[in-house]
């Protein structure tokens, strides 16, 4: 009898064994769940961080504020020039009126300030969005070297706005946290694999006599192996489902708490990425369970 002819026999054996070795299998399940939970939470935090970083970077832009006296023709030429640069993704011209609208929108809770305002003191501007935020410096230099700049801008030092110093620092911090996160995640994964496979090894060690008896009455190696393999897979599966439940709880609840406390931090998790995390956890759990069982069993099958 083998796997092809009676797969359900082996699955039933596996479930039966889990039931009868309840303490052992709950140990394996909870170890798997806890390990995967830690890995999952860590990756989740990493996702939040990287989506935050990406969003912050994508918001980086260069804004050039124009004199009210700048001639429309010259402004148009300037825009065309900027658009011709490789580094530039798109630009957006913000007229005085639009600037005022945005300002009003931002201050709608403080109508007093708006009433105190007469006329429109806000300048028009050109917002420049870059393909790669790392090129901010290059673009700013190019603007500074633009020949007709004096007629468009009052004072280049004040009226060309960009993240300046903090951009460089932000880049290095983002990079560093990324590497730290990745190596910590790798370490955590490694520790989890060791932890789970040790639990399985204890489990199988406790049942080594059973394995020997099965071999004694003529069970082939695979006949002994299949139920243990399924047992490992089921334990991994249940463990990963528990872990996913916990991770999901943390995602929904804790994230909301954070957003409530620090509302300006626009934290979000890409749903597709989260789905991949879930699938990865299930796959990881099942895989660790299965391979852990087969490897732990090897020693005791040599009879």
């Amino acid at each position: 009898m083998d796997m092809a002819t009676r797969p359900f026999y082996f699955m039933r054996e596996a479930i039966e064994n889990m039931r009868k070795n309840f303490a052992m299998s709950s140990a394996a399940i909870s170890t798997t769940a806890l390990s995967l939970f830690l890995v999952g939470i860590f990756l989740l935090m990493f996702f939040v961080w990287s989506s935050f970083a990406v969003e912050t970077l994508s918001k980086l832009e260069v804004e050039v504020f124009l004199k009210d006296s700048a001639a429309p023709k010259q402004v148009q030429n300037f825009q065309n020039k900027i658009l011709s640069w490789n580094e530039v993704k798109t630009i957006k011209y913000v007229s005085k009126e639009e600037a005022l609208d945005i300002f009003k929108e931002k201050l709608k809770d403080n109508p007093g300030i708006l009433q105190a305002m007469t006329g429109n003191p806000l300048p028009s501007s050109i917002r420049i969005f870059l393909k790669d935020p790392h090129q901010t410096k290059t673009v700013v230099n190019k603007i500074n070297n633009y020949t007709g700049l004096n007629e468009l801008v009052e004072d280049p030092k004040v009226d060309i706005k960009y993240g300046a110093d903090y951009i460089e620092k932000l880049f290095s911090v983002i990079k560093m946290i990324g590497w730290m996160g990745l190596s910590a995640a790798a370490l955590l994964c490694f520790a989890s694999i060791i932890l789970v496979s040790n639990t399985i090894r204890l489990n199988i060690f406790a049942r080594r006599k059973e394995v020997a008896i099965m071999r004694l009455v003529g069970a082939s190696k695979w006949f002994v192996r299949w139920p243990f393999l399924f047992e490992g897979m089921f334990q991994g599966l249940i463990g990963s489902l528990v872990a996913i439940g916990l991770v999901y709880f943390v995602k929904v609840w804790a994230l909301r708490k954070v957003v409530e406390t620090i509302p300006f931090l626009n934290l979000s998790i890409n749903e597709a990425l989260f789905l991949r995390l879930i699938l990865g956890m299930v796959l990881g759990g099942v895989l660790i369970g299965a391979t852990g069982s087969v490897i732990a069993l090897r020693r005791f099958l040599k009879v």
Partner: protein
Amino acid sequence: MIKIKNVTMIYNGGKPALEDINLQVDRGDFLFLVGPSGSGKSTLIKLLIRELVPTKGEIYIAGRDLVHMRLRKVHLLRRDIGCVFQDFKLLPNKTIYENVAFALEVIGKSERAIKIQVPEALKLVGLGGKFDRYPGELSGGEQQRVSLARAFVNRPPLLLADEPTGNLDPSISMEIMSLLDRINKTGTTVLMATHDREMVNNLRKRVIALEHGKLVRDQARGVYGYGD
């Protein structure tokens, strides 16, 4: 059935546990294997189920060459050998029904055949009403009967028993013994290692004796023959 030629077994460079053993057992024989503790009885049985491979010599069972057998073929040999041990070797997490059924599941018997053969075997050893009990809930004698039922449920041509009555009261030992005798009468070759002087002396079967790893006696209708 069993042919052993010039077999020597040495564990990791120590003294030989068995030395130059020659033995021929015919189909349907019943023989006792006697000898003091440490004389090599258990080693011989382990060689026969290929738990061990001899250092030197040849072993054949029903035409199978045990010395050159690949590890992944060993389970096929064991399906032809029923085994009974002093410590019963039952699966603690299975009921006695499941324990006996396991020996049939392993060889791929259909569920229908299992449902007929297992109760038959258990009734034969006198455990008709205890199918759902676990080994831990049974007495030693009952456990040994379960292990006997498992050993012959698939009608193997050879049955090996390593001190099957070693842990049991004399009256229960006699029951086990008569079961073995009955199994032998159906044509199964039985080899039984034992310390039980009275049993050997009463039954007058073939007796082979081991001492310090050497085969010192092979006697048809023999006696136990030790003073201990």
